[in-house]
């Protein structure tokens, strides 16, 4: 287990170094950083002066090293656009995205798994078939279309839910949360639903397919032969075996949720990191873009590593440190 952990951590560090390198290259090649700092009519000398001061004439590898060390301390420099430290900007935006993604992730699991089980156990029911068709729609409609439809129905026509913003947020020290106010919670409903829809349908279809597969397995037949109750067979024996692929997909999709949050945040003017990133792209605000890239990659790496660890919890066959196959021939 320890060896496994160390190996996974090393891999994670390698990935992050590679990502940092790409982010670093953005600095070098997405326009000249000097241009972004000095005024339009600066002389060549003034430019060289700035270049020296920023130590942009050092060897590439040295600059990269500096970038990595700074980034590791959360220092991504200063935003070109509004001259505030990038880390402060991100810290401000992170809670909004985190809460949105968290709610979407929980929704996709809390709805996707039960619906998947239901459609697998009652494959011929009217409700199951309806859900299957709906899930096809969910998987094939672009998310911004469903987002706009949701706004049209629930904000414009019915006027039940807000169409933009986070509602009222409360400062709890180091985090601004929308979970504690009625308007904050209401504002979460549409964006998180839009964001989770694709994941939700994916998980539902996956659980259904896996469940149908697992129900055909020999150990399920043998569990029936042992006279176990249906409830035990479905929700203990079968479900646990379907969870392994669900964990995989969910881990991958959690990253997807963070990435797709960009679209949701744009549609709902949600003040999160995604919206920040889109602004940064519009203004070629490289420090913000680089920081976003590194942040999101870090989240991906953390999620993937956690998924691998989770496998170990679910599947005893992967716990390599246990005494293995100590059984002799019968």
């Amino acid at each position, binding site marked *: 287990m320890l060896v496994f952990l160390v190996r996974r951590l090393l891999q994670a560090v390698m990935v992050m170094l590679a990502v940092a390198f790409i982010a670093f290259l953005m600095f070098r090649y997405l326009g000249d950083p000097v241009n972004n700092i000095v005024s339009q009519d600066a002389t060549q000398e003034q430019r060289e002066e700035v270049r020296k001061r920023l130590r942009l004439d050092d060897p590439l590898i040295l600059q990269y090293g500096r970038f990595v060390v700074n980034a590791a301390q959360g220092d991504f420099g200063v935003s070109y656009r509004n001259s505030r430290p990038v880390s402060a900007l991100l810290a401000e935006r992170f809670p909004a995205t985190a809460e949105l993604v968290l709610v979407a992730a929980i929704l996709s699991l809390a709805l996707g798994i039960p619906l998947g089980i239901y459609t697998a156990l009652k494959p011929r029911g009217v409700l199951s078939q309806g859900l299957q068709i709906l899930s096809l729609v969910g998987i094939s409609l672009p998310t911004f279309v469903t987002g706009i439809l949701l706004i049209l129905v629930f904000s414009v026509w019915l006027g039940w839910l807000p169409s933009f913003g986070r509602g009222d947020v409360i400062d709890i020290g180091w985090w601004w949360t929308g979970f504690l106010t009625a308007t904050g919670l209401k504002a979460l409903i549409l964006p998180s639903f839009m964001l989770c829809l694709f994941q939700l349908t994916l998980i539902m279809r996956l659980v259904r397919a896996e469940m149908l597969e697992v129900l055909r397995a020999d150990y399920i037949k043998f569990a029936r*032969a*042992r*006279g176990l109750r249906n409830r*035990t067979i479905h929700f203990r024996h079968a479900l646990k075996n379907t969870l392994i692929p669900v964990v995989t997909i969910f881990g991958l999709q959690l990253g997807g949720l963070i990435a797709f949050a960009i679209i949701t945040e744009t549609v709902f003017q949600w003040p999160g990191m995604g919206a920040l990133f889109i602004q940064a792209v519009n203004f070629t605000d490289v420090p913000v873009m680089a920081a976003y890239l590194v942040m999101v990659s870090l989240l991906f790496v953390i999620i993937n590593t956690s998924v691998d660890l989770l496998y170990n919890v679910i599947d005893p066959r992967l716990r390599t440190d246990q005494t293995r196959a*100590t059984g002799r*021939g019968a």
Partner: protein
Amino acid sequence: MALLEVENLKVEFPTRKGVLTAVDNVSFSVEQGEILGVVGESGAGKSMTGAAVIGLLEPPGRIGGGQIRLDGKRIDNLSPDEMRKVRGRHIGAIFQDPLTSLNPLFTVGKQLIETIRTHLPMPAAEARKRAIEWLAEVGIPAPDRRIDQYPHQFSGGMRQRVVIALALCAEPRLIIADEPTTALDVSVQAQIIALLKRVCRERNAAAILVTHDMGVIAETADRVAVMYAGRLAEIGPVARVLQKPSHPYTAGLMGSIPRIGPRPDRLVQIEGSMPRLTDIPKGCAFNPRCPKAIAECHHLRPELRPVADGAAACLLYEGVTQ
């Protein structure tokens, strides 16, 4: 009264091209504590017969007729939940592949305990004690330690021992063992069969033992049933059937002529192959391959009737003369 009585059992599969009959009018009984061997070529309907008895036919397969009685009470028309209570508690089953019969994500102890407590209400601690006793009973060394291990930590033979413990732990009086050693290493097959026989004998549990191995039948079974194309060809005491088979198909299986000395262990190939369910010949299903076939065999279907100290389904015993 016999423990299990199967009367005119039919197992059908509705298909687009009509209803296929996988088990056709099969009747037999199993006495208390008796081991009935079942042999026949692959596809003869052995597994379907067993699945029908334990109520685990997979749809679209269904019982198309006949009765199955346990202790004189019909079990073929029970509700799904009533039948579930029979499974494990009154009739146990062991399948071919021990590697896939155990849920890989649960310890063997957990699987034993849940089976015991499903059928025999008792505190968890007591069920655990029983589970350890069962592991010891089926010859797992250090059972108090092994009980908390997962299936992948056991070898194939050890897993099949666990499967036997699982099938027997709620003390059923009948075990259906469908080729329980086919997937195992040859070196452990005999031990598993010996174990199965011992635990059945000790508990006076009866068994239906499906196997391809005539040696196993000879050593283990009290009586043997021979199936062909979904029908019962012959049934009778094992020694007599092996030495002096009544049915030409059984004789073919034994290597044509009854002989003294070593019997062939494996089923001997008979000229031709068993017909598919879609084109079972009229009359006796065996007639295209039967060396003794007579004219009537092509249009009269033989019924199972008493022959010697058993029964056989062959026109030669129905007074039809050549």
